[in-house]
């Protein structure tokens, strides 16, 4: 029974994928859209059943499917583990997934390859489920790479545009850099524990078997963190995520904001017992997270592409989550993942709605004044923006506040960085809101003529996500956290001590809210009061230009890594290959040259041959008789 349900959970999206890929064209657009959506909803329903069951029994469910890879010291089986963490993750993956599928039915309706789009989305959900429910690192790795593949396919969905294809390729390769780290981490863990199974490792850690190999485990967790940084777009592997906005907007919402990019956080949370053993790596994670959050937020301040702003905001928020992870506050990171999934999905879908209304326009300088026309979009967008800015009582406030609070207690410097990033977030999010929805419309007359509110299939997910963004904070209210209790069993150590609502806590909350309000106020004075519109690309100067060009990180990577590799490839192809080839031919040439010399002896002069013969004979006789 359980096996059947698990298979249903896992395979429903896969069947959806197969049907859409092979029969999608025959089915027609609507049918393929609804079919794809249905597949995810089935998974969602099954997940809910399991979720309720596990919430009650508190017993994780494990299912053995089949044997997979056998190694000398241990073997890896294809097992499924449904525990509190994976079910929680599945809930919002399939839940938000369903909403975004619904949204896409309308959004992608005009695309000729809509059935493929749904096929890929289903495949993504399938791999995401695999990632989450795998009972060992290697199955997680299947999902891990699988979602990377889907990300590649969906970023490059409009494959006729080579720039999009470049973005897709970049995403895949950057992810693979992380994957190598992940793989090495897996090797070390397998080597140390002789198992890749989460439960087994956890038991071994609790039993203290790991203490002999702490240095090695430090390397392992560092490698795993590199993997997580690749997937979750942390410094130095974050540059793919903004480029990934080349994909259709629902993809950005689902993969590049709500679910896939949080896989790194999932993995670290899964292996929290290992990371707890290696505090140095935790420090690294915290610092990287904080710096990423600040850098990405600062870039987000000046971007004019609506999706790029959201992308940098995602990177920044992910940085905050890693900060929490690094500080050992896994449940807070998970909390922020969930709230972030709600409001960021809402923001992306809202921006998609705007882009849809403007027929593909993404530049905020060409928007404005949409508040009156697109009421639902605006309202949900406003809620999500308030949530991400950390205004109570919306969801983002609670999760972000907890992160800040932990940071404040652990390390003041990190707290300052995170707080600045939060203020910046408030600023650029409201900048986005003001530029898009307020003042006059700045696009062409024709666009203005066509402005309309999106259809119900688009607004429905917006409303649901808007509501969730508003009330999601209830999952983990300060002082009485349902989430902490729920997640307790998956942590090796006792969960991060809940903060009492003392004076410091209230003061910190106050500071956070005031900070957010300062950011909002700055945006208000700049874009509403003064009515400024960001200048055109060519006129951007000074530090803003550096920011606008993302600190030239892409260019640096290009110059320092990609170009030299290309140069090396070219050099190897043109010189080393020919050189080696010439060495081989050299043997042949030497032989040929020798024989050319030998050929001269063969001059056709019989007399000469006879002389040679006679001298040869004499020397043989001489040797035989006189030298031997």
């Amino acid at each position: 029974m359980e096996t059947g349900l698990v298979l249903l959970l896992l395979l429903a999206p896969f069947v959806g994928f197969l049907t859409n890929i092979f029969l999608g064209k025959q089915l027609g657009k609507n049918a393929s859209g609804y079919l794809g959506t249905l597949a995810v909803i089935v998974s969602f329903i099954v997940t809910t059943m399991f979720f309720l069951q596990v919430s009650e029994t508190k017993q994780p469910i494990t299912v053995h499917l089949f044997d997979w890879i056998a190694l000398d010291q241990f073997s890896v089986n294809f097992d499924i583990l449904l525990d509190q963490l994976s079910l929680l993750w599945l809930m919002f993956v399939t839940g938000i997934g369903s909403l975004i599928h619904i949204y896409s039915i309308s959004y992608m309706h005009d695309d000729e390859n809509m059935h493929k789009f749904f096929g890929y989305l289903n495949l993504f959900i399938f791999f995401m489920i695999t990632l989450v429910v795998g009972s060992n690192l290697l199955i997680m790795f299947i999902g891990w790479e699988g979602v990377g593949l889907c990300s590649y396919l969906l970023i490059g969905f409009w494959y006729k545009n080579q720039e999009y294809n470049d973005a897709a390729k970049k995403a895949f390769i950057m992810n693979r850099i992380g994957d190598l780290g992940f793989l090495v981490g897996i090797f070390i863990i397998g080597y140390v524990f002789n198992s890749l199974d989460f439960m087994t490792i956890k038991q071994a850690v609790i039993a203290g078997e790991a203490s002999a190999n702490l240095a090695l485990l430090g390397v392992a967790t560092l490698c795993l963190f590199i993997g997580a940084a690749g997937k979750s777009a942390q410094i130095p592997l974050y540059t793919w995520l903004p480029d990934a906005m080349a994909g259709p907007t629902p993809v950005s919402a689902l993969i590049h904001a709500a679910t896939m990019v949080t896989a790194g956080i999932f993995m670290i949370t899964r292996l929290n017992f290992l990371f707890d053993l290696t505090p140095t790596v935790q420090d690294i994670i915290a610092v990287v997270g904080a710096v990423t959050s600040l850098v990405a937020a600062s870039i987000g301040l000046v971007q004019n592409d609506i999706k790029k702003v959201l992308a940098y905001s995602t990177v920044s928020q992910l940085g905050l989550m890693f900060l929490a992870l690094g500080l050992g506050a896994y449940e807070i990171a998970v909390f922020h993942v969930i709230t972030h999934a709600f409001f960021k999905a809402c923001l992306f879908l809202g921006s998609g709605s705007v882009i849809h209304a403007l027929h593909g326009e993404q530049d905020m300088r060409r928007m404005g004044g949409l508040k009156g026309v697109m009421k639902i979009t605006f309202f949900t967008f406003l809620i999500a923006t308030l949530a991400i800015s950390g205004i109570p009582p919306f969801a983002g406030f609670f999760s972000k506040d907890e992160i800040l609070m932990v940071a404040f207690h652990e390390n003041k410097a990190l707290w300052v960085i995170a707080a600045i990033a939060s203020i910046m977030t408030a600023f650029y999010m409201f900048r986005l809101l003001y530029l898009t929805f307020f003042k006059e419309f700045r696009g062409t007359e024709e666009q203005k003529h066509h402005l309309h509110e999106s259809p119900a299939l688009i607004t429905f997910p917006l409303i649901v996500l808007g509501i969730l963004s508003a009330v999601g904070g209830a999952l983990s209210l300060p002082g009485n956290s349902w989430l902490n209790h729920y997640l307790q069993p998956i942590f090796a150590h006792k969960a991060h001590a809940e903060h009492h609502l003392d004076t410091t806590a209230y003061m910190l909350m106050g500071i956070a809210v005031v900070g957010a309000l300062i950011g909002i106020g700055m945006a208000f004075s700049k874009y509403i009061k003064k009515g400024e519109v960001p200048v055109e690309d060519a006129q951007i100067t000074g530090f803003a230009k550096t920011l606008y060009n993302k600190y030239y990180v892409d260019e640096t990577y290009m110059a320092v890594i990609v170009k030299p590799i290309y140069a090396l490839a070219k050099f190897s192809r043109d010189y080393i290959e020919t050189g080696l080839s010439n060495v081989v031919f050299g043997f042949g040439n030497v032989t040929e040259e020798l024989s050319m010399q030998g050929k001269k002896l063969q001059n056709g002069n019989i007399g000469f041959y006879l002389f040679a013969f006679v001298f040869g004979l004499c020397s043989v006789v001489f040797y035989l008789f006189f030298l031997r």
Partner: protein
Amino acid sequence: MAEILFYILASITLGTAFLTILSRNPIHSAIYLVICFFSIAGHYLLLNAQFLAIVHIIVYSGAIMILMLFTIMLMNLNKEDESHKSVASKIAATIAFCLVGIVLLAGLLKTKPVVESYFHSGEDFQSIKVLGQVLLNEYMVPFEFASVLLLVAMIGAVLISKKDKQKEA
């Protein structure tokens, strides 16, 4: 007695051999060679190999030399028309001759002389009868091969020297 005979024959052999290679006229060479062959046949007789001596005269002096003479006459070579070789090659040839001669002789001189001198058991080993038996018993197969070889040589010679009809046509 035999010793004197040997030295006379030996001097004829060597002298005519020299004359063969030195005379300008090929016909003269051929005739000197015939004399040389006869003297070799004489050596065979001295060694009591009568049958071989006769065969030698028949094959060499008879068949081979006649063939050569015919060829010379066929080609109309009976005049001294050989172009001069360069002096260098002549010197080289002489040096080579001396070298071969010295090396061979020196080699032979250096070998240990046969300790036991010749002892004749009196057994008959080289009469025609014995030879025939050896040839057709022990050396049966090579004998047959030799005959095949001669046949092939004959056919080959005919084929080679035949005028190419197609070419003429």
